């Protein structure tokens, strides 16, 4: 792991601008684009997951510590469980 960053936090600034851009893009697609509903939902859904991934790697230093493998594995498994709970509940409750 790198010790003592360079003087200027480039990573953070890029990360911030990226997440701002993704948020605004999602808002525009959702509110102004007039695309069919499922298309909008999938676009802003993908944007949300991309932004989440970006936060994990750029801001939360997930890759850093020596047990990063387990940390990333844990987050991936929890996403799988989260999707099971959400999609499972919707599928079961609607028929």
């Amino acid at each position: 792991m790198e010790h003592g960053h360079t003087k200027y936090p480039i990573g953070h600034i890029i990360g911030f601008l990226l997440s701002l851009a993704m948020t605004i893009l999602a808002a525009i697609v959702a509110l102004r684009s007039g695309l069919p509903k499922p298309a909008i939902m999938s676009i802003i859904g993908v944007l949300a997951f991309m932004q989440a991934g970006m936060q994990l790697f750029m801001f939360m230093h997930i890759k850093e510590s020596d047990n990063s493998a387990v940390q990333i594995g844990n987050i991936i498994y929890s996403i799988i469980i989260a999707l099971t709970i959400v999609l499972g509940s919707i599928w079961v409750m609607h028929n």
Partner: protein
Amino acid sequence: MIWTCPIINTKGWEENRLKLDEFFVTGEPIIYVTEAGIALAMIGILFYLTYFKKWKWLWNNWLTTVDHKKIGVMYILVAVLMLFRGGVDALMMRAQLTAPNLKLLDANHYDGIFTTHGTIMILFMAMPFLMGLINIAVPLQIGARDVAYPMLNAFSFWTFAAGCALFNISFIIGGSPTAGWTSYFPLAGTEFSPGVGNNYYAVALQIAGIGTLITGINFLVTILKMRTKGMTMMKMPMFVWSVLIMCIIIIFAFPVLTVALALMTFDRLAGTHFFTMAGGGMPMLWSNLFWIWGHPEVYIVLLPSLGIYSEIISTFAKKRLFGYKSMVFSMLAIALFSYFTWVHHFFTMGNTAAVNSFFSISTMLIAIPTGVKLFNWIFTIHKGKVKLTSAMLWSLAFIPNFLIGGVTGVMLAMAAADYQYHNSYFLIAHFHYTLIPGVAFACFAGLHYWYPKMFGHMLNEKLGKITFWFWMVGFNVCFLPQFVLGLKGMTRRMYTYQEGLGWDNLNMVSTVGGVLMGIGFLVLVWNIAYSIRHGERDVTGDPWDGRTLEWATPTPIPPYNFAVAPVAEEIDAYWNMKQKKTPLYKKVDVKPIHMPNNTGMPFVAAVGFGLGGFGLVFSWWWLAIVGLIIVLGCLAWRSFDPDKGHHIPVKEILETEEAARGEVV
């Protein structure tokens, strides 16, 4: 003028507030007798503590301990008490059902009893008993000094204890919940369960759940990060593997319970519409959320038990566990599948054939890894040298009984057939055939197996065998007839039935079985009391010629467990050391050991949880807020003085080692 908070209007809370005369439950002779019994016991304990000036000893050694071994003993003590209460509940139910139209218990009392029986047996007996055995054995088996977060370990126990106490006072103060341990809506809503009973269910389980989640995280980190040198993942004892996988399931299942119970609390106390009939609520959503946690929960209690069986069968067959890798992968497969099968608990709730078919198949798939494990145990016994101690008897009896549970499980997994089995006594027999041999037998086996490490003396083997046979026969006599009763149309949770339906003599036989199990429990209690004085002392620290590292420690186990962390080269590390006669450690390697300090914070936080929970149950908001402040205060206080711990000097270590082992080279 009632203060109406802008976000949550308090209309719902007003009707819910109880008048004080409904505070104490009245009108049941059995409850008066129990109240008197408990009062006497409490007075007896208080008298003993004050008379023998034991308060200081209690505070220093037990209420503020962070030692995983003492916490384990406390967990098991609570579990045995709960086994007693859950068992008495079961016997009362069996008594009421012995013959048609009996009037021992009325409907409401019977409903309260089966609800507390179910909840206590799974959440307040099985979980703590296993957590107790895990706390005692796991750190020792991986050659560690303690768990990753000793203070959080104590915090988990005391939070669990607060939830357990809160749930148990419900039948005296306010009335116990009467909607079953699954507490389905709309029955569990304020419209059909107006009393505070179900508030107890929602709040007590929430508090106990917090403790379990923290234990899950604690032991996951302990197992992953604190194994001794040389013990790679594939060289860990099988029990440690089962606990690791249990932690993974806990971490992802208990948050679902936390949310479900929180939504139930909001529905009952704040008038929201999650599961209500009015306002667009969906009662089926509760069943869905409950079982998303519920099914992984039964694997949370099953997996450590399978780990205990692996240890005991391997030790008493004097043979290495057969198929170590396939045992690990089958447990991983069970853990993964356990998240995709929850709908088999409500096939009959009008799901489409596609949903029912998917979950039928996913439920059947779990039988495959379970089958693999059964064959691996059988082949561990193959060419072994089977020593029939009590612990081994319990573990061996697990295989045939759990097999009946397993095959009936596959029969129940067929959605079309489940329309006939659902909620019948066939289902009752099935889940008792999986839970009692699957979990209760493992608790008894583990108790016998690790008893010398806990208390320095062994349980009497003859009495142990008597207990075992009472349970083995009683269990089958009680639950085999229930398969037939289920097919005859008898449903669960019926407080009585008419004659002429052909259910009479099978219920009679079932009650006889229940009584036999009750007698078995009494013999176990007598065994524990008897062995305190007459139990065979454990001098060597390794009474069963064990294979894993916990047997490398002297008895009584010093607070630091290992003077020098042992090096594990092979699976069954201690067995390997004994074969090669490698010395445990050299005197020169002994260094001062850093140990955490005792802390009173977890106990105080538990008092806060108890008060706050009690306030929530009775909608006394000021008490709930006081409780919350105590808990948050404790956390903040802890954050400000991270305990520096203390060091045990080398001289003191050598003294204890020499006292236990004779000279140290």
